[in-house]
């Protein structure tokens, strides 16, 4: 091929692949613009703090925000200790070619790939039908109380779903702690657990925080796992105990979009709800990104 035609082909390929990248970004922009345009009008402080009225055509979505927040809070409390300790095991305690560590890693990778609806089935089959019913038998004389969809079961289900996120982020953070700090601690007569608790974990804190935020962003957006583990479309009260049901931004979106009796009337609320959900997700991801790049920058300049 002549040089000129090779250059043309090269130019064409650059254009084509650049167009692909632009397409992806472009669609992102379209989504953001469409949601923003449709939902901006309805967005207000009142929308965020008041409850829905008139069959979801008036009022706000506060209960959905509250439910989402409360559920992700419970989820985080459950997933952080388990995820961090698992990462600590993998990075600080496990011997190099350990079979057990290999199994744990494989399990975590697989967990990351399980479809979210299967997590919903797991929540139903394990937490509600097994643990909940067992609690009913033991604590409630067989009467149905714990073995039903509830905030706590949804939170625990999502905790299992987001476990890989926390583990991966924490391990990355542990790896970033320089080895010579561990050496210094051990040389002073500290034990391994003291070294981890006093030197390594404090140093890994930003990365752990990033992992927590990413888990929350993920958990707040997932709808399939909570469909039959605790979420509801309309509840008269806010959830008061871990065994209450709850409303949720994502689920609210789904129901409003697919099952609303009057599409036109609920449309503004629907768009505004999606807008809130998107802003929340992006804000969380953005904060995590900032923390991560600042820690990397600091580590790079310190070395």
């Amino acid at each position, binding site marked *: 091929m002549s040089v000129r035609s090779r250059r043309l082909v090269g130019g064409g390929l650059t254009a084509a692949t650049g167009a692909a990248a632009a397409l992806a970004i472009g669609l992102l922009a379209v989504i953001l613009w469409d949601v923003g345009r449709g939902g901006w009008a309805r967005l207000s402080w009142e929308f965020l703090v008041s409850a829905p009225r008139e069959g979801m055509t008036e009022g706000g979505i506060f209960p959905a925000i509250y439910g989402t927040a409360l559920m992700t809070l419970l989820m985080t409390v459950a997933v952080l200790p388990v995820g961090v300790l698992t990462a600590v095991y993998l990075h600080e305690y496990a*011997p*190099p070619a350990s079979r057990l560590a290999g199994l744990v890693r494989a399990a975590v990778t697989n967990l990351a790939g399980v479809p979210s609806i299967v997590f919903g089935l797991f929540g139903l089959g394990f937490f509600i039908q097994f643990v909940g019913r067992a609690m009913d038998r033991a604590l409630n004389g067989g009467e149905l109380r714990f073995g039903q969809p509830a905030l706590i079961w949804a939170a625990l289900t999502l905790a299992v779903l987001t476990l890989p996120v926390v583990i991966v982020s924490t391990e990355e953070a542990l790896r970033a702690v*320089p080895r*010579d*700090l561990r*050496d*210094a*601690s*051990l*040389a*002073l*007569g*500290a*034990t391994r657990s*003291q070294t981890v608790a*006093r*030197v390594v974990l*404090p*140093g890994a804190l930003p990365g752990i925080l990033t992992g927590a935020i990413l888990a929350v962003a993920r958990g707040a957006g997932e709808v399939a796992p909570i469909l039959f583990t605790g979420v509801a479309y309309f509840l008269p009260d806010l959830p008061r105990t871990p065994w209450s049901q709850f409303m949720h931004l994502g689920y609210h979106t789904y129901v409003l979009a697919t099952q609303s009796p009057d599409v036109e009337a609920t449309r503004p609320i629907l768009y505004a709800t999606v807008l809130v959900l998107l802003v929340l997700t992006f804000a969380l991801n953005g904060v995590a990104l900032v923390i991560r790049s600042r820690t990397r920058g600091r580590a790079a300049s*310190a070395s």
Partner: protein
Amino acid sequence: MRPDPSAIGAVAADPKMETRHLVVSYGGKSAVKDVSLRLPGNQVTAFIGPSGCGKSTFLRALNRMNELIPSAETEGEVLLDGEQVNAGRFDAVELRRRVGMVFQKSNPFPKSIFENVAYGLRVGGTRDRAELAERVERSLVSAALWEEVKDRLQESALGLSGGQQQRLCIARALAVEPEVLLMDEPASALDPIATAKIEDLIHELKARYTIVIVTHNMQQAARVSDQTAFFYMGELVEVGVTEQIFTNPVERRTEDYVTGKFG
């Protein structure tokens, strides 16, 4: 090859630390080959030799830090006050409280100056604030750093200069009140003025501690140590009174090294 007992200064008494036929290997390749060496108490022993000769590996075997590397295997004995300390049964954590270490590149924790020095005390169980304060001050004085930091103990240790950080690491190691202090090229990353301060410090500390220093700087070894051991390719070639090693070595390889023919 074998150290001449009569050449090891005026040590008639038992050595503070001793190794017998110590072998250290990583994944099958031996880094330290059959080294038997006596380290006299309250003296400074220097290890010299070209890069990769095993002197740092040997140093780390003395406080069992090489055990942290998974592929490391050790044979032979390491003794402290006549008691074997590298058998599985002797607690490594306990050993490291008695045999402290200062590393080549200073590695202060990202904590305050006070907390750095107090670290070893806290993990050792000391909690009384007055006691901590007193022992931190004492260690910083011993490391010749107190005057420079006494008004900013709560500030981050990372704000100190390189030389100050290294002295901080020395203070940190001294706070635990070890009996032996191992120093792995403690001044190699420092400028001459800071280096001189460290060398003065070593000279003063010798009165209370047994010091072992690894250095690739022969002039430093000559300035600072009472006895010198020359390592080459994992073997202890010669050990003796510093002056003798540098002016009148017995082994040919030692002479070649100290006269700069290689290394």
